[in-house]
């Protein structure tokens, strides 16, 4: 292929909606930072927490985890972590938390830190680390903290867990009424919840496009494209964005445009991305003609089952049963289901030093995955935003070996 053709092919394979997403996120952060010091409330919130009530109360949600991913991807998180470590926080703590504490102190990072919160919302459905982290933030900023305690779900959701969760959803709304001075407006909340659900359904459809061969995007693209569904679900602009992205994906499928020039193998990814290494790993997988077609992370924001008649109750159930709040057996079921639906040849698991609930159990899940599907799994060691725990040469060698030798032997040519 000539250089000109190569450029044209690259341009053809590029996901066009990426520009719209970037614009939306720039606008979002500009608005959020601009609101600092005004009457508008700004809430820092964990990625798994119910954001819909904030949207319904016209509060700007800000996500330290999303910011942490940005700091990681821009190779700025280590220096922020070091600030927190200098204050006595152990290097063994989550690097999102350390980086965020460092950024709160120094206003460091690619966008000059996050706008100061007027209150905080934490939900432990993704891990218990987050409530320690948010307790630190509450002390640092001296602002109110709302904690949504979601008991762990093993098997089917038990009624007393659903009841406990609902009581807290009601308290959350009461907390917002008090802090904003506005009454709860159920029709408005239902509208927000419906938009959230609709955007989530669109996002699910976007991800499902990767069942197609060749896949129209990799999960590394999905890691970037998920920013709006994490941060702004419940708004019309997010619905519009995912509708546009879905249309583009469908068009790519129609035209046979894959994200890679050549797709020989298809893999499933487990755990949070290695944010600082996305570019290098992306290049490596492209060279190995291997597409990461699905993952366990981005699908965490594909919600189902909002009941317009009982919006608070149904939302409280949804947020209690997210991927990281269910037992290993249910995780194994989900991984098996993804592997089957997306026709994968194997799985790569990121053993993430910063995320114990996601990582502890992977040794067992890897064996279970192979037992159930007959496909191989590889576990790589890293940390989602602290590159000091990452050995690039070792990881790349292991991935290369896994793809070239193991997949080469098991996948028919």
């Amino acid at each position, binding site marked *: 292929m000539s250089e000109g053709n190569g450029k044209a092919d690259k341009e053809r394979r590029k996901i066009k909606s990426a520009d719209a997403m970037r614009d939306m996120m720039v606008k979002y952060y500009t608005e959020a930072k601009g609101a600092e010091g005004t009457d508008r409330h700004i809430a820092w919130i964990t990625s798994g927490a119910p954001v819909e009530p904030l949207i319904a109360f016209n509060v700007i949600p800000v996500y330290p985890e999303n910011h942490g991913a940005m700091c990681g991807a821009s190779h700025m998180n280590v220096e922020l972590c070091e600030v927190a470590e200098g*204050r*006595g*926080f*152990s290097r*063994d*703590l*989550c690097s999102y*938390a350390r980086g965020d504490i460092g950024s709160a102190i120094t206003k460091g990072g690619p966008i000059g830190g996050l706008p100061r919160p007027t209150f905080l919302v934490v939900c*432990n459905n993704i*891990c*218990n*680390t987050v*409530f*320690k*982290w948010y*307790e*630190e933030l*509450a*002390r640092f900023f001296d602002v109110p*903290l709302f*904690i949504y*305690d979601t*008991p*762990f779900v*093993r098997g089917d959701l*038990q009624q*007393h*867990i659903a009841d*406990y969760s609902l*009581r*807290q959803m009601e308290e959350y709304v009461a907390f917002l009424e008090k802090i904003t001075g506005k009454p709860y407006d159920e029709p408005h909340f239902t509208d927000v919840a419906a938009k959230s659900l609709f955007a989530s359904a669109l996002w699910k459809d976007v991800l499902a496009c990767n069942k197609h061969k060749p896949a129209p995007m990799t999960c590394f693209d999905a890691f970037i494209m998920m920013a709006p569904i994490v941060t702004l679900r419940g708004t019309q602009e997010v619905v519009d964005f995912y509708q546009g992205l879905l249309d583009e994906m469908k068009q790519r499928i129609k035209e046979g445009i894959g994200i890679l020039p050549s797709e020989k193998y298809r893999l499933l990814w487990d755990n949070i991305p290695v944010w600082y290494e996305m570019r290098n790993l992306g290049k490596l997988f492209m060279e190995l003609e291997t597409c990461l077609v699905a993952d366990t992370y981005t699908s965490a924001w594909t919600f189902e089952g909002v009941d317009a008649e009982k919006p608070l109750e149904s939302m409280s159930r949804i947020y209690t049963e997210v991927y990281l709040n269910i*037992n*290993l*057996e249910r995780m194994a079921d989900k991984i098996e289901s993804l592997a089957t639906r997306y026709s994968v040849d194997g799985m790569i698991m990121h*053993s993430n*030093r910063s995320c*114990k*609930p996601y*990582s*502890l*159990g*992977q*040794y*067992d899940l890897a064996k279970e995955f192979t037992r159930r599907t007959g496909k191989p799994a590889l576990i790589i060691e890293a940390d989602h935003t602290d590159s000091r725990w990452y050995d690039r040469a070792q990881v790349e060698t292991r991935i290369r070996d896994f793809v070239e030798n193991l997949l080469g032997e098991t996948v028919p040519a």
Partner: protein
Amino acid sequence: MEQTEAWEKMMDTVRDPHPALRERRDAGEKVVGYFCSYVPVELIHAAGAVPVRMLQGPAPGDVAGAYMQPFCCSFARSLLEGLGNGTYDYLSAVVMPHTCDTIRNLSDLVETAAPGLRVMRLMVPTTVHTPEAVDFMVEELAALRPDLEGVTGNEAGGADLRESIRLYNRCRSALDGLREAGPGNRRLYAAYLALQLTGPEEFLDMMGRVEAGGTEAGTRRVAVIGGPVPQLEVFDLLEEYGMRVVWDDLCTASRFAAGMVAEDGEPLRALAERYLGRCPCPTKLDPANRREQELIAGIGESGAEGVVFAQQAFCEFHSFDYPGLKERLDAEGIPSVRLDLEHPFQPTGQMRTRLQALSEILGEGM
């Protein structure tokens, strides 16, 4: 019985509880393991089983390595090792509470690593200070009770549960009395651990045979704070540097024994209120900063002049609390050092250096 012999018997129970528990299993008793101080031992006891805290596991080896990453704490890895390699072969069941993320995930791994062992879960809420959290805990205890009854075939309600509550309250009072008498680091902490490693009747029997006072050593008064510290060698090490522990916030010691269960009223609610009402462990929400306040008050009342943080390496929850507590101690002019514990316990050069430094600082004030 000679005093030293009675104490030695207690030390043996603590050092290696497993042979005696195997004997009890062989004699037809049911032994139920539990993972943390938020599991109501009274309920296990009322069902007719011997409640035994999961401590004193082997060094993490092949079993732990097959299931857990090295960045998980060696305390949890040691317990999984023991469950997989037969160290705890006398157990009929284990009760695993939701405390930290590691123990939560461990409860799934135990089912694979120790097939056949009955695993019961107790979903202790992270929020402990609200009425709905207490209501939720009551529901969880009500769900746990029939599971325990299924192990022993005995009912764990009514009079039996009230009797178990009274018995454990007596044990807690006995520990309070022992602390007051000042028997020295090793004996005091052996007694705390003994209650968790044998039944309450055996514990009270042992307590009736030992003499409380007389062997207080060390002139430098310190408070020790952290998570589980089941190795008496840690306290010996402090004594080596002239330190006498006058106050602690350890989940295998004072936090385990703190506060009585109300003996009147509905027993499950009384249990929920006592267990959630204690000064919160770092894995629990603490919006009012109660842990820090109680630490400062405890230091003041006990006359502690310095603090030793004794926490498990890789424990996120204690590590999050550490900078804030240290800052507060610094502001109060109270010197402190931090020891990161691994299992099995080996005093490292770094630990000795830190303890030496603290000892010297405390010595200067004398």
